[in-house]
């Protein structure tokens, strides 16, 4: 590098990744110590923090040099080099660049719109920032141990966030209390992480017995390339990873925690939960599963593909008959995550880049939908689609953006949903025609239930009881317009994201 | 002729009788007595081993006997403490039957 000023800059660059994680977590710790101010002041503080993190994440995304690729901003510090060799490594790859940006945006949105939390504001923001910090950590860490640590850290606050600030709903024939939703979510996610933990330990033991104990991705990748992991080993460890990470990204039989979690969670939390938390699973499968255990990936790819397609169709069909807005969005995110899983299962570069783009676009889409549904619930105190109708009359801003989000989710060209799904279809058609056909059919089914939802609740004659509801407040307006504009921008010009994603996928494909 | 095996068998028998006493008896005091029997069985074993093997191998200066002395002292201390506890519980519940000590279960 030229001159020391550059190395200083380079130095400054490298710790930027660390700052991005440390800032929310430090802020959470500081909040704990602060004397208890009003919830509003904590809201203000956490919004400032999230604006800064958003700035850094945009900076990281922008300055990711798409020509060189590989992991940049790498920052490693030996953490525990006695016995088991764990070093705190961070690094930004092509894929994690867009994911970091996604998390920056969604975290900022979540903080801004949760201004209406009165009860124990401080604890809410402490947990929210820990959640955000944890997710940043997962995307940035280049070390298996810290990947898992941040992965668990992101799951930790979910219980309290949902159980304390959530809302129970009574559906007549069955009730979903917030405690039930929170407990189920926590137990399913930690049960999934049991599988991942066993997998990680198995990998570490292999490296330890091989004489080079390590957790770093690069090392593991190099070891697995020159054949350290036998095929049977890769098979069962990849299976653990697939199910473990799959559960978090709503894999079919284990998906029920996500809709129930959404129904119970407050708006900001379900934004982060659906927008970002579910992406950790898919990110894990791609970043760890495929890179470190390529042979295992190849053996289990058909199963993941089939489960993915089941996810898509099953999610779309069950969304069709839901009566609660959040349930519909919950099942639609299960269906969209099915696309991501199919994309990852294609194991070809188009499919995976489609999957990553879908992760990004679905993240933004669901976050937008949850902001709007949260706003509707905050005003109409019900999410039952039979009760709500003709909302566009009273809340034009919210409803127009809801229509935009709906059309993005059904894959209308010009919005990011289409490009991502199209790339996944291209990836899948190379594998098998029928799965691609079913996937496209899934998109059509999405159209059916989205249009049914819009026709039933948004447009149509106004009910007398709902006629005096106020429109979105200033924060909801800003956040929703920002998210919608991101959707349109990525939809019209996907090269914004695809350049960095392609580079990231290239490194992954070289492992296969 | 008298061999070590006889003493060992004797201590085994005494030990198992003591064991039966501990398991079968209802009154706490009798359980304490049974434990005394078991400890005596242990002492017999120690002294017999020390006496017979004196001289060969590591059996130098009658460690068995010293061990017995320590065991007797500890046993004495233990009986004292156990009976104190039994009296305290008798004062509260007017019975020493082990069956009735089950406020805390499951």
């Amino acid at each position, binding site marked *: 590098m030229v001159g020391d000023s550059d190395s200083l800059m380079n130095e400054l660059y490298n710790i930027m990744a660390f700052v991005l994680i440390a800032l929310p977590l430090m802020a959470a710790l500081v909040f704990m110590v602060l004397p208890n101010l009003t919830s509003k002041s904590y809201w203000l503080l956490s919004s400032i923090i999230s604006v800064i993190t958003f700035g850094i994440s945009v900076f990281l995304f922008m300055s990711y040099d798409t020509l060189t690729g590989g992991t940049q901003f790498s920052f490693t510090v030996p953490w525990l080099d006695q016995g088991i060799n764990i070093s705190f490594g961070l690094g930004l790859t092509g894929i994690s660049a867009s994911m970091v940006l996604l998390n920056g945006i969604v975290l900022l949105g979540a903080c801004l719109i949760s201004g209406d939390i009165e009860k124990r504001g401080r604890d809410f923001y402490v947990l929210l920032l820990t959640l955000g910090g944890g997710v940043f950590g997962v995307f940035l860490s280049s070390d298996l141990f810290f990947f898992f640590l941040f992965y668990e850290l992101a799951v930790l606050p979910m219980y309290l966030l949902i159980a304390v600030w959530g809302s129970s709903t009574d559906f007549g024939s069955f009730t979903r209390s917030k405690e039930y939703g929170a407990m189920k979510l926590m137990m399913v996610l930690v049960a999934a992480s049991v599988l991942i933990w066993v997998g990680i330990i198995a990998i570490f033991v292999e490296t330890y017995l091989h004489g080079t104990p390590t957790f770093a991705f690069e090392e593991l990748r190099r070891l697995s390339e020159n054949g350290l992991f036998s095929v049977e080993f890769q098979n069962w460890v990849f299976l653990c990873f697939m199910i473990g990470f799959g559960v978090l990204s709503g894999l079919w039989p284990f998906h029920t925690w996500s809709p129930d979690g959404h129904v119970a969670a407050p708006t900001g939390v379900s934004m982060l939960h659906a927008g970002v938390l579910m992406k950790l699973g898919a990110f894990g499968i791609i970043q760890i599963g495929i890179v470190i255990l390529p042979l295992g990936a190849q053996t289990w790819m058909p199963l993941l593909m089939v489960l993915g397609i089941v996810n898509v169709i099953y999610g779309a069909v069950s969304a069709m008959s839901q009566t609660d807005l959040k349930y519909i969005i919950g099942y639609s995110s299960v269906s969209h995550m099915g696309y991501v899983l199919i994309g990852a299962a294609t194991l070809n570069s188009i499919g995976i880049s489609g999957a990553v783009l879908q992760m990004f676009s679905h993240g933004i889409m669901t976050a937008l939908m949850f902001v709007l549904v949260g706003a509707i619930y905050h005003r109409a105190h019900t999410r039952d689609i039979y009760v709500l109708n003709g909302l566009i009359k009273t809340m034009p801003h919210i409803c127009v953006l809801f229509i935009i989000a709906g059309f993005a989710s059904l894959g209308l060209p010009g919005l990011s949903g289409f490009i991502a799904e199209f790339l996944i279809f291209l990836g899948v058609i190379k594998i098998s025609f029928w799965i691609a056909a079913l996937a496209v059919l899934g998109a059509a089914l999405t159209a059916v239930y989205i249009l049914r939802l819009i026709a039933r609740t948004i447009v149509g004659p106004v009910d007398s009881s709902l006629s005096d509801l106020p429109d979105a407040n200033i924060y909801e307006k800003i956040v929703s317009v920002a998210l919608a504009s991101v959707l349109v921008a990525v939809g019209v010009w996907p090269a914004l994201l695809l350049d960095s994603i392609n580079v990231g996928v290239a490194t992954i494909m070289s492992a296969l | 002729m*008298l061999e070590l095996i006889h003493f060992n068998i004797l201590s085994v028998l*005494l030990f*198992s009788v003591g064991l*039966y006493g501990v398991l*079968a*008896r209802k009154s706490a005091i*009798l359980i304490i007595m049974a434990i005394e*029997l078991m400890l005596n069985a242990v002492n017999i074993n120690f002294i017999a081993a020390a*006496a017979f093997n004196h001289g060969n191998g590591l059996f130098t200066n009658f460690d068995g006997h010293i061990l017995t002395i320590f065991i007797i002292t500890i046993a004495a201390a233990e009986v004292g403490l156990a009976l104190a506890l039994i*009296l305290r519980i008798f004062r509260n519940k007017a019975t020493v039957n082990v069956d009735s000590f089950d406020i805390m279960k499951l």
Partner: protein
Amino acid sequence: MHLILFSIISTVLLVCAVGVVISRNIVHSALFLLFALISVAGIYLVLLTEFLAIVQLLIYGGAIVIVILFALMLTRNEEYPRIQNNKLWPIAGVLAVLVCITMSVSYFQSGAIQNVPNTIAPAGVKSLGSSLFTTWAIPFELASLVLLVALIGAIVIARSDKDGN
């Protein structure tokens, strides 16, 4: 001659031990315990360790049994002399027999026990005393602390407080 003496004392010992465990009357079992401890002292004599026999007699026979009798006297309630076994006693019997079998099988199988010279070496008081205070000094100190703790503990527990809330 030793054999005859040993067999007499051991039968007395076992009879009394069984008596402690079987008898219906609590005072009888206490007395049986006293005789059992005395016959153990006899066993020590057979093993030519007079000092230990005296120690056994004094401490066990004298102190411990007396304390137990005191405890029996203090904890009299309506069904004073009669004591029953708890309803688990058949299982206890089976367990005790099983333990006895396993132990004795291990003794019979063990080669080391067999080829032990069958001469009994007398243990003089002088050698016991010297090794007690030289090689085993640390355990001796600890034993004293244990006695101290037992003492304090017994007092703390058994002391009846004035206000006795």
